[in-house]
């Protein structure tokens, strides 16, 4: 399944008045993320938070227009974190390393009014995942 674009996500989420609809959207996004191979839930792919765990598998592929783009498979044992990862992937998946580095993830989460989830105190690994993705992009430019 193709992820919605960041523009679509900002549109969709701004449409909701109450938190329940917003989190249902995030939960649904989490459920719709491509399945992550159970065998990939290994220590090397683990980004441990104290509240939930996140796994990431980086790869790359050729985009006919852009050249090499980075591709990430991600997973979490918490469904809301999976949904938040979906928001991250909508912004950073299948992008060139330079596009990833140029993207302001903090501003994006602020626009979604979800910046609290990026806070390091959340312990959900989301901030670490973003840093990991940016690090991989940095190494690839």
């Amino acid at each position: 399944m193709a992820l919605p674009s960041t523009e679509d996500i900002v549109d969709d989420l701004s449409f909701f008045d109450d938190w329940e609809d917003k989190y249902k959207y995030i939960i649904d996004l989490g459920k719709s993320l491509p399945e992550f191979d159970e065998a990939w839930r290994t220590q090397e792919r683990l980004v441990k938070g104290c509240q939930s765990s996140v796994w990431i598998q980086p790869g790359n592929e050729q985009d006919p227009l852009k050249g090499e783009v980075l591709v990430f498979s991600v997973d979490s044992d918490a469904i809301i974190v999976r949904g938040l990862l979906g928001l991250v992937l909508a912004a950073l998946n299948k992008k060139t390393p330079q596009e990833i580095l140029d993207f302001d993830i903090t501003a994006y989460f602020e626009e979604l009014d979800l910046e609290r989830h990026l806070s390091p105190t959340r312990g959900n690994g989301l901030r670490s995942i973003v840093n990991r993705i940016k690090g991989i992009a940095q190494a690839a430019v």
Partner: protein
Amino acid sequence: MSFDVAAIREQFPILKREIDGKPLVYLDNAATTQKPQCVIDALVDYYTTCNSNVHRGAHRLADEATRRFENARDIVKVFLNAPKREEVIWTSGTTESINIVANGLGQLLSPGDEVITTGMDHHANLVTWQQACKASGAILKTVPVTDDGELDQAAYDALLNDKTKFVAFPHVSNALGTVNPVKAMTAKAKQVGAWVLVDGAQGAAHGWADVQDIGCDFYVFSGHKLYGPMGVGILWGRESVLESWPVWRTGGEMIATVTLQESTWNVLPYRFEAGTPNVGDAIALGEAIRWFSALDHDAVIAHEEALLDHATALAKDFDGLTIIGNAKEKIGVLSFVLDQGHPADIGFLLDRQGIAVRTGDHCAQPLMARFNVPGTARASFAIYNTIEEVDALFVALRKVRSMLA
């Protein structure tokens, strides 16, 4: 005396807060309790009227600060029923207290000695002893936890022998709420000649910290879980044991005389209080204990038991909820998992409804592994919580369950 929860709540300004337009329901008291106005005032008053360094100034402020600081030590002595005020040592909290003992007494351990901790200790009372054992060659043994979340007393008996030098266990489990039989466990350890440390991080706030009754050698707790400020706590140790190990942290108040080559050490308690102590927080902790001790203790316990009983009854009726920890003796903690949600999901969605709980491993990863859960959601209760707040938790949990379905 009786117990008026509305009057208690009035004294806690933070309880008037709203979260996203909903009244705050604060059920994370095992992580830290809120502070009554008198504790906040004590802290502000110290910095407003007599801030200065204790024991060393030749001026009025230092006199006043020292008097308040030492008066707070006397309050703690009475609270713990400690034989001597010199045995009451200020620390930054439970974790530092245990580190002081593990690094100090750890020097007395030899290869082949045995140290016992439990499968329900939080990391501060486990990792410290792992390290002390690695450094000394002592062997670390663990009292297993039963399916109900109690310490397996038969296994504990079997672990004790004449090689057992040290035993450490929690008074109350932070993750499960289990109240351990600390007096009986201490007595058994003393029979084989071991030193005993009771981790009172979760026990002190229930007013059960009578060290002479328990019979232990060390009792430690944090001020912030006892309605006091963060950053201050207590190490109580039996005088003869505190004096038995070589000092390992030096400087400041713990010195008696110094030449360029040699130093001698101050007497207890200062021998352990290297550097400038946390004077303001110590004074405010004294005030917290004074405030807490003035309450009707039996009524406080009855109220806390009523909260947990009500929460447990609602939890047992809640489809898809499993309580983690069903010890016969429990206080203050309802730890649980839901079939349909990771604890982190539960925490997010409760927070959005104004309900503050802790989710995760509760700094007790081996215990979570024991119950084969990634963590739990934990509602923990304090004296200012109400039956209505427990009801609100379960109304909110129904919404969580439907959203995650």
